[in-house]
C-alpha cells in the first residue's frame, strides 16, 4: 500500500495556480526526493502533505486515508524544517518533550523515546543545552530527533541541509541515510541539490514550474532523462547539448551538428524524420580522449583540475563541449588541441521543438 498518494493535487493562491495536477505515489518505506529549482513548487507540495497549506484541488492520502481536511497533528507526520525550527528558549530535552506532550504519554515512555533518539543521533551529551549553544549540524540532528520521537508514519524534510557548509552537509546527509536505513520510515525530502537527491533517494521526482517533469530512480533520471530540462538539471557538469538536424547517408539517418556527425541510434532510426530539428545530448563523462581513429579534433579552451578528474572545456568549430576525463589522462599543460570521441551507446536525442527525449 502507498504511504502517501497525491492524486491531481493542485495549489492556487487566488487566481494563480502554482502546483498543477501533481500525481505521485510514495510506497511505504520509500525515500522520495522532490527535486527542482527554486520556485518549482516542491516546498509547496511538501507543505500540502504536511497540512501547512490548504489543497486547492485533488486528493491527498496518507496511510490509506484521505487527509485533505485533516489537521497536521492528525496526519501521523513529522517535519524537519530548513531552519531547524528548534524552540530557542527550551533545552534539547525540552524540545523533544514538548513535541511529545500532545500525545499524553507516560513519563517513562517519554524518557524512553528521548533516550533512544538521543542514543541513535548522538545527542546524549547535548540534552541540557539550548539551541544557541549548538553547532549547525547538532541543531539539525536535534531537529531530526524531535521528529523521530513522535514515531510518525512519514518524515518530511524541507531542505534540511541548505544552511550547512559543504563538509557538514556530507556528514549530515550520511546520517540521514543511516537513519532511514535503520528506521525504514517513509521519507518525503525536498531539495534543490541534485547530489543530495542522487545519493539519498530511492525515487526522485523532478519538478519545474509546478509540474512533475519525471519520476524515477536516480539511475533512470540520469541515464534516461525524459526531456531537456531533466537532462540538463541532473548531472554535474551538465549534459552537452548540440543542435542538430536529421539527414540521410547511405540510407541511414545521421544527425549533423555543425562539423559533428552522429549515427542516429538504431532504435530511433524509424521514428526520425528528414530535416527534423533535434538536440543531441552527451554527458561529459561519455566523451573520451583518443589518439587516432574515429573522432574529432578539438581546441582546448580551459582545463579544470579537480583532483581525481579533470574538466576540459573544448571547442569544435563553434560548438563548445565539456569533457570529463580521469585526471591522469588530462593533456599536458599548455596543450592547445586534442582529439575526442563520443560513446554512441550514450547519445541522447531530443526533439528540439518539444524538448522531449526521443526513445524507441
Amino acid at each position, binding site marked *: 500500500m502507498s504511504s502517501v498518494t497525491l492524486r491531481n493535487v493542485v495549489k492556487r493562491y487566488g487566481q494563480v495556480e502554482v502546483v498543477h495536477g501533481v500525481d505521485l505515489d510514495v510506497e511505504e518505506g520509500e525515500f522520495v526526493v522532490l527535486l527542482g529549482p527554486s520556485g518549482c513548487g516542491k516546498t509547496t507540495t511538501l507543505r500540502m502533505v504536511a497540512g501547512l497549506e490548504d489543497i486547492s484541488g485533488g486528493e491527498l492520502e496518507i496511510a490509506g486515508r484521505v487527509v485533505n481536511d485533516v489537521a497536521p497533528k492528525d496526519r501521523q507526520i513529522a517535519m524537519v524544517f530548513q531552519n531547524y525550527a528548534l524552540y530557542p528558549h527550551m533545552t534539547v530535552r525540552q524540545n523533544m518533550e514538548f513535541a511529545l506532550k500532545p500525545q499524553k504519554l507516560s513519563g517513562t515512555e517519554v524518557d524512553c523515546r528521548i533516550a533512544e533518539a538521543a542514543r541513535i543521533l548522538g545527542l546524549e551529551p547535548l540534552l541540557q543545552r539550548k539551541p544557541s549553544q549548538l553547532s549547525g549540524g547538532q541543531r539539525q540532528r536535534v531537529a531530526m530527533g*524531535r521528529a523521530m520521537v513522535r514515531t510518525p508514519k512519514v518524515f518530511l524534510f524541507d531542505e534540511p541541509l541548505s544552511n550547512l557548509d559543504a563538509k557538514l552537509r556530507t556528514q549530515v546527509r550520511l546520517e540521514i541515510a543511516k537513519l532511514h536505513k535503520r528506521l525504514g520510515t517513509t521519507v518525503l525530502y525536498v531539495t534543490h541539490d541534485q547530489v543530495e537527491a542522487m545519493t539519498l533517494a530511492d525515487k526522485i521526482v523532478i519538478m519545474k514550474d509546478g509540474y512533475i517533469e519525471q519520476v524515477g530512480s536516480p539511475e533512470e533520471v540520469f541515464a534516461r532523462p525524459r526531456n531537456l530540462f531533466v537532462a540538463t538539471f541532473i548531472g554535474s557538469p551538465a549534459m552537452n547539448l548540440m543542435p542538430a538536424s536529421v539527414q540521410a547517408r547511405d540510407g541511414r539517418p545521421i544527425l549533423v551538428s555543425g562539423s559533428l556527425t552522429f549515427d542516429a541510434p538504431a532504435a530511433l532510426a524509424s521514428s526520425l524524420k528528414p530535416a527534423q530539428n533535434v538536440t543531441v545530448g552527451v554527458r561529459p563523462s561519455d566523451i573520451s580522449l583518443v589518439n587516432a581513429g574515429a573522432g574529432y579534433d578539438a581546441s582546448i579552451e580551459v582545463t579544470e583540475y579537480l583532483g581525481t578528474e579533470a574538466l576540459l572545456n573544448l571547442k569544435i568549430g563553434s560548438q563548445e563541449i565539456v569533457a570529463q576525463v580521469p585526471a591522469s589522462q588530462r593533456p599536458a599543460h599548455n596543450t592547445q588541441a586534442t582529439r575526442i570521441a563520443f560513446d554512441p551507446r550514450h547519445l541522447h536525442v531530443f526533439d528540439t521543438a518539444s524538448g522531449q527525449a526521443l526513445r524507441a
Partner: protein
Amino acid sequence: MTSSAREKTLVYLLIGIVLLVFMTPIYLILVSSLKPSAVMFSRPPAFIFTPTLQHYYDLFTMRPFHLQILNSLVVALGSTAFSLVVGTMAAYAISRIKNKRINDVAFWILSMRMFPPIAVVVPYYIIFKSIGLLDTPLALIIVYSTFNIPLTVWLMKGFFDEVPEALEEAAQIDGHGVVATFFHVTLPLTAPGLAVAAVFCFIFSWNEFLFALMLTGSKAQTVTVAVMSFWSSDAVQWGRIMAGSFVVLIPGVIFVLTCQRWLVQGLTMGSVKG
C-alpha cells in the same frame, strides 16, 4: 591618545552631560524635600543644612497620601495588565493575519495614540458621569488603556514579526493548538517586548495628570493630583510638593529596575539578527 580612546572619552562625556541634565532636577527635588522651609529659598542656596523629614511626615499625616499611592498603583497596574493582555493578543493577530485590510486596522489602532488627550477629557467626563464611574479607579484604567493598548500593539507586533512562523508550524505539526503554541512557544520569545510595553504603560499611567485631575475627586485621587493639591492660590507648600514628588518617583524606578533585564534586551532586539 588613539582615535578609539578619543571616541570613548567623547561618548562618556556626552553620557555625563545627559545624566547631568536628567539627574539635576531629581537631585534638586530630593535635596529640597529634606531642607527646612526656612532655608529652602535662601540666597545664596544653602548647600549645608540640617536635613529634616518634616515634609514627609506632613505629607502622610495631613492628607491620606498612602491611599493616593494605592490608587495610583491600582490604576497603573490595572491599566498595564489589561493593556498587555488585550494589546498582545491584538498584536499577534495583526502580525500573523496575511490580509491587506489588516494594515488599515493596525493604523487605526495607532491613530488612537495620536489623539490629543485634551480633546477627549470632557467627553469622557460626561460619559463616566452618566454611567456612575466618575471618581473611581476603573474610569482611569479604562481611559489609560485607550492610550496604552495602541502602544502595546505596536511594540508587540514588532516582536511577534521577529518570531519565525516555522516555530509555530513545528508546534502545530507536533499537535499543539493555537493557544498552547502562543503561550508556550511565541509569547516566551517576546518576553523582552512585554517588559518594554509594561514599563511604558506603567510609567504613562503612573505619571498621568490631566485625566486624573478631571475624572477623580476625593475617593480615587492619584498621587500626581495629590502632589499638586499642595499648590493653592493661598500658598505653595514647596516642601510637601518636593517630598511628594520624590515619593512619586520611587515606584516607577522600582518597576523599571525589576524589568531591567528584559528591558535592555527588548530595546535592542531586532537590531542584530539572531
